[in-house]
């Protein structure tokens, strides 16, 4: 154990244990922000997220868990690829996003993204695989985003891109058990 681990905040500890990232190692060069394709849409840039996480106090945590940027990470891996400190800011955002989700602090602008993720997982939990029609229907129900892309569905069907009947795997009971166990693990 290094000295910096000894006196880390509860947040820094949680981040380290889940993602392996030692926040104190970040020296705020901003290369993550510079390369992030989504940074321009974010209310906090990746390096600011790292900085606030380093601060780790209650006010910082509050800002982190209520920001939109957490939900805008597209998972492109650019930040980790180029970080000169060999850190993974996206993994830190994953940890924070899970915390925000658990505390149900979802900013309005991110609700569509959360709705999509949830709809996606719901179809997987139900049949073991993602199914596009149920996913879209569920997403539109949850997000209230009824109008977008209405023209695409029929075209996709016409192009035989969407199977009408979703496939359900034999081991779906197993999948549901996995979901249930994970849910228990992450929501105390």
């Amino acid at each position, binding site marked *: 154990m290094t000295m910096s681990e000894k006196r880390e905040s509860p947040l820094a500890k949680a981040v380290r244990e*889940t993602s392996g990232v030692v926040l104190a190692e970040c020296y705020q060069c901003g290369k993550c922000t510079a390369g992030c*394709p*989504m940074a321009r*849409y974010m209310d906090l840039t990746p390096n600011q997220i790292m900085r606030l996480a380093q601060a780790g106090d209650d006010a910082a945590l509050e800002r982190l868990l209520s920001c939109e940027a957490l*939900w*805008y*990470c*597209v*998972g*492109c*891996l*650019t930040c*980790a*690829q180029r970080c000169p400190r060999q850190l993974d800011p996206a993994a830190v955002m*994953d*940890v924070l*996003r*899970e915390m925000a989700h658990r505390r149900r602090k979802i900013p309005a602008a991110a609700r*569509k*993204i*959360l*709705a*999509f*993720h*949830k709809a*996606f*997982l719901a179809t*997987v939990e139900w049949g*073991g*695989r*993602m*199914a*596009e029609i149920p996913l*879209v229907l569920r*997403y539109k129900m949850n*997000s209230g*985003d009824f109008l*977008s*892309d209405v023209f*695409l569905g029929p*075209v*996709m069907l016409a*192009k*035989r*891109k*969407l*199977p009408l009947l979703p496939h359900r*795997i*034999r*081991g779906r009971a*197993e*999948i549901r*058990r*996995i*979901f249930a*166990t*994970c*849910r228990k*693990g*992450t929501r105390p």
Partner: protein
Amino acid sequence: MKTLGYYPGCSLSGGGIELDLSVRAIAKVAGVELREIEDWNCCGASAAHSLDHSLAVALPFRVLALAESQGLSEVLAPCAACFSRLKGTQVRLTRSPELGQRMQELVERPYNGTVRILNINEFVASLLAEGLAGKFTRKLGLKVVAYYGCLLSRGEDIVTSDDAEDPQGMAAAIRVAGCEVLPWNSSNECCGGGFSMSKTGSVLDLSQAILDEARAVGADLVVTGCPMCHSNLDMRQLELLKRRRVPGALPILYLSELLGLAAGLEPGALGLGRHFIESRQLVRGGA
């Protein structure tokens, strides 16, 4: 006949069905048998990853465990996202035996870490090594930009067969197919990934930049290996065209489709007819 495990993933039975069709087609031409993992499940994609770190490992873990129990030592995952999830899980398991223990208990399946995951570029390279080029009959003569996106170029210990900043994994195959590979900057830029529905605006911005550069360097088409990238560049191009943000349609093909065409296969059989942006004209002259 060489046998390879096959993990199509959810996209390939839906929006990305062309990738499935063309991969199976060129495997057949090369004489490689693809054996689908029985009763495979979704890898969880970015949704599980975003919301639940245990689930994000548990779902791919079940797939790996199934493959191992079915005697598949090498598994092709043509979808770049599935590849990244499966191989990423494999990497994490190697780094942490403790995680492996936890997952065995959670998923209730044993896994000894013996499965090797291949992406589409590695798969194509192995087909070339097996002599696929000898089966090529059609001269394509196209100018191509190779688009790797994020998940076929990056990921520490995940994409081990390529250079993250200057990926070249498709170039040899495209050249063997009789096409010219044009240098460009966007080969490893992000298209907006899984935000196609939930944050469409960003996908349009990012995809437009990629299409703009492809056109600027004089490409006839973009070749990709990822169904998410394909969907963003192909399906979302309709909207860019509608809003006149791009001046004209640019076909987007999967690498496997391009090779299938070179092998003389019918465009329809490869799934070209299912794209939103018409691409069958690319081979009209040469067929």
